[in-house]
């Protein structure tokens, strides 16, 4: 891809941090708040934020079907934290996992930890009122675990992580969005 355009779902959450990270890896970031803004983008990021707020935004905007179509098109989709939750079985149903919200606890228990992510190596993970993944379907590859719980998974063109790569200066995860065509992280 030659300077890809990457959409960042901007209903609520840390979409600006993702936009900055995407600019760092040479992409043009575009905020997505409507169906029309999903057109003409090469990849999509669903950011962190409050999953209840974002879910209501998806409903009121009628974005569920367009998002399903986008995932079905095979273009890369990255979800972080609330983005992971939004993609799971109980929400958009695009990722065959069940996420447990706020599984690591309240803000007082929010933390940073090193994460070994298959294909990318060791990353600093920033976990903020973070979910973990309770159960994983057959087509889902677990890429990283913490305390025995999956915290990073890939299912075809979707990469979803429970932490916030956009809040560090390490750009390996965002490079996946623009260089791998939705393949395995490397």
């Amino acid at each position, binding site marked *: 891809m030659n300077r890809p355009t990457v959409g960042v779902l901007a209903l609520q959450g840390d979409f600006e941090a993702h936009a900055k990270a995407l600019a760092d890896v040479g992409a043009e970031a575009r905020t997505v708040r409507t169906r029309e803004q999903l057109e003409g983008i090469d990849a999509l990021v669903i950011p962190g934020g409050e999953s209840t707020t974002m879910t209501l935004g998806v409903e009121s905007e009628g974005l569920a079907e367009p998002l399903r179509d986008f995932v079905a098109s095979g273009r890369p989709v990255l979800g972080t934290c609330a983005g992971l939750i939004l993609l799971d079985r109980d929400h958009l149903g695009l990722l065959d996992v069940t996420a447990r919200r706020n599984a690591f606890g309240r803000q007082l228990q929010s933390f940073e930890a090193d994460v070994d992510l298959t294909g990318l190596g060791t990353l600093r993970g*920033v976990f903020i009122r973070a979910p973990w993944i309770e159960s994983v379907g057959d087509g889902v590859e677990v890429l990283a675990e913490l305390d025995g719980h999956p915290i990073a998974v890939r299912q075809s063109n979707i990469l979803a992580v429970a932490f916030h790569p956009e809040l560090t200066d390490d750009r390996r995860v965002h490079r996946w969005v623009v260089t791998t065509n939705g393949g395995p992280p490397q």
Partner: protein
Amino acid sequence: METGTFRVKAGLAEMLKGGVIMDVVTPEQAKVAEEAGAAAVMALERVPADIRRDGGVARMSDPNMIEGIQQAVTIPVMAKARIGHFAEAQVLQALEVDYIDESEVLTPADEAHHIDKHAFNVPFVCGATNLGEALRRIAEGAAMIRSKGEAGTGNVVEAVRHIRMIKGELRRLASLDPVELPTAAKELQAPLEIVREVAQNGKLPVVLFCAGGIATPADAALMMQLGAEGNFVGSGIFKSSDPERRARAIVEATTHFEDPERVAAASRELGEPMAGLEIGELDAPGGGGLLQNRGW
């Protein structure tokens, strides 16, 4: 695992961006706020409009009341401590609230010193009326800033003044030559190190929300267009005639602030907004005074 890092504290504010944080006084109101799409709730015993009406000393809320709200919702729960009252803040941390607002809405406990916020693992949000005040709070460890506005008035004029002041001073700072920054730091009464960082980046190192007087969807859109990264709404929702609709409408306007048609649609048939107060009357003798003048 490392807890309580500044990245983790400021990070939660990043997650709240583009959202609305609503004052609630009961678990039922907290549910209404969550279902309307609030990104967080502020748990308190009385909304600012009632604190203003009742007078007397306003303090941290009863822990039972805060816990009731924590049990009612899954979104972050914030609570207020008095300016300088680090023991109230310790209690709020023990209750595991997600954010502490060191707030001028409560009666200050210390007339010279704010809380040393670096000493806590729970993050703090603080009010500011100008850039110098914001940077002093950040130097003390605040992980999020909100413009103060004038709480409990339903009048957005002070919020506009404060956000314009902060954004204007940020632009001015970014335009200065590096050799001019020590003098700027002196004028702002803020640490030079932070002034240099802000001058280089042209923005605060933490998230900036707006607070104080927002009562309508258009108010919310106005503050976002002026550069706020999200809105606190205190009395404006639950002092209106139809809190559920108004809460949804303010969330909608905060998300789609750049789309006047969406803001127009959100503004229809909301019932009566809270009754507003004229700032000049509060500031006059016998008018009760301005909350925004609390904090130093």
